[in-house]
């Protein structure tokens, strides 16, 4: 054989094959090895998962730094600390260094402008991140303080736009603003005084210390019962939230609502929020099956009447009742296939109040988007967190998806509230 013919017959095809092999893996696909069972969760074809860490505590929201470091908020202190920091030093995706810091428990957590922002139930703090260290400066600054200690819908969650604003979900300490909360037949207060300081999204500056809601906060949107899932979509410059709808229609107004009605009403609403929006709580709820906003029975509703609800903001999408949407992120990376880009992921923590019917949720959903709006129906993306089916009571669930974050490489991170398990989902 001549040199030329060797090149033609062997080297060129070999180079061709090597190029094909490397191009078949998407750009930015990490060279990760999935857990044999994908960490126990079920994913669409082509997606895999590994468990980054487990038994971290009662996990809440999660943040991932560009260098891959992970921060998890805890609902309860573990060893006296409320935030977990994790670092993978070997590149296999599993956490090798796990450190606890912070003296307060909380829910919201977010990396923004070189700081780790952390939302306790009554205050928003931030820790200065250091360039190479896992742990930030351990003495936090207070950005917002003085939220009143409440015992219902007290968790604070946060989002940031790109022009210096911090958005805070201030949940309403109430189910439907009844005169006597959660009491059969008790009418709603009209107008609802709770809306003055709760039941909406408040906006603050993201870098001014010691702000308070009264002096520095401006109410961005109202009529929102509790929106644990809140996110700024930087691609379209809009704020989005997903609301926890009211509970126990059957228990408080049995003349109008059966057990089955209660299990299916109201929908959890997904909103694109603009300043000044009024989304209707407590006067209204969204009927998933009818596709309209109707009056709550506390305000004279009977399941059909609309009244003032005709003027309230409608959702861009509605989800099954009581599924507890607890986090929302928009996917802006390019590891996942094209159809996932721009889309939204929502973590549904799982219901408690569909009893005596089965509970629902305990999955991460995906919604394709085209610019500002959904471009199709929603689908379950990751499931089997609960580990049992059906789930009759949320205490039966082995895991409940709670927090979402996207790494710089495009991996999707999911946190769990039962044991603090963190999954890293990737596409290969």
């Amino acid at each position, binding site marked *: 054989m001549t040199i030329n013919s060797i090149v033609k017959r062997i080297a060129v095809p070999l180079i061709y094959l090597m190029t094909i092999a490397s191009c078949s893996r998407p750009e930015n696909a990490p060279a990760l090895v999935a857990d044999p069972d994908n960490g126990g969760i079920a994913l669409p074809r082509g997606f895999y998962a590994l468990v980054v860490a487990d038994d971290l505590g009662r996990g809440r929201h999660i943040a991932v730094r560009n260098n891959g470091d992970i921060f998890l908020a805890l609902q309860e202190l573990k060893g006296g600390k409320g935030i977990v920091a994790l670092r993978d030093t070997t590149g296999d995706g599993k956490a090798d260094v796990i450190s606890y810091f912070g003296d307060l428990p909380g829910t919201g957590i977010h990396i923004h402008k070189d700081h780790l922002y952390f939302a306790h139930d009554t205050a928003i703090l931030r820790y200065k991140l250091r360039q190479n260290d896992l742990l930030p400066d351990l003495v936090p600054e207070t950005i917002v303080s003085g939220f009143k200690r409440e*015992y*219902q819908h007290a968790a604070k969650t946060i989002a940031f736009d790109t022009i210096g604003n911090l958005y805070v979900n201030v949940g309403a300490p109430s189910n439907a603003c009844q005169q006597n909360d959660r009491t059969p037949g008790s009418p709603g207060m009209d107008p609802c005084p709770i809306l003055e300081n709760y039941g909406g999204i408040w906006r603050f500056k993201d870098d001014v210390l010691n702000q308070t809601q009264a002096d520095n906060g401006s109410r961005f949107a109202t009529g929102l019962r509790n929106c644990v899932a809140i996110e700024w979509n930087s691609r379209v410059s809009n704020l989005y939230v997903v609301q926890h709808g009211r509970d126990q229609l059957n228990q408080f107004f049995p003349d109008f609502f059966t057990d089955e009605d209660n299990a299916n009403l109201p929908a959890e609403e997904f909103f694109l929020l603009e300043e000044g929006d009024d989304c209707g709580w407590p006067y209204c709820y969204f009927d998933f099956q009818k596709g309209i906003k109707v009056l709550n029975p506390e305000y004279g509703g009977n399941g059909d009447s609309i009244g003032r609800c005709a003027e309230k903001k409608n959702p861009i999408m509605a989800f099954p009742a009581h599924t507890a949407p607890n986090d929302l992120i928009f996917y802006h990376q390019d590891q996942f296939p094209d159809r996932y880009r721009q889309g939204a992921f929502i973590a549904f923590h799982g219901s408690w109040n569909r009893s005596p019917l089965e509970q629902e949720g305990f999955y991460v959903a995906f919604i394709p988007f085209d610019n500002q709006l959904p471009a199709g129906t929603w689908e379950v993306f990751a499931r089997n967190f609960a580990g049992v089916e059906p789930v009759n009571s949320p205490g039966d669930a082995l895991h409940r998806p709670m927090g979402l974050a996207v790494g710089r490489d495009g991996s999707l991170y999911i946190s769990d509230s039962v044991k603090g398990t963190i999954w890293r989902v990737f596409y290969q």
Partner: protein
Amino acid sequence: MLFILVSCKGKKVAAHTGSEAGELVYKKYCLACHQDNGSGVPGMYPPLIKTSWVQGDKTRLIGILLNGLEGKIEVNGQVYHTAMPPHQYLTDQQIADVLTYVRISYGNEADAVLPEEVASARNQSQPTN
């Protein structure tokens, strides 16, 4: 073996003639939060399973049902801090029935609550903290 597994699921473990009325009250007013098996909701509503809160002091227990409960409590080693609303609209008989039912269900073993005891506690009307 199967029997042990079944009973360990946390369902009612004893026959409860006379507490059917209590079970009806439970299903209507308590089940949503405390759940069909008494397990409550993690982080939100405490379990009623084998706890001194249920089996212990009757006056305290009646007071919780009458006046509600707000603030952190620890039940079986876990902390809960979601408010429980008052249930003063239930009659003395209903409260006696449902507490009697819960005190012999979910692994609990304690004596009945009488309507007179509820009436007496209602008259005192002391909020629990």
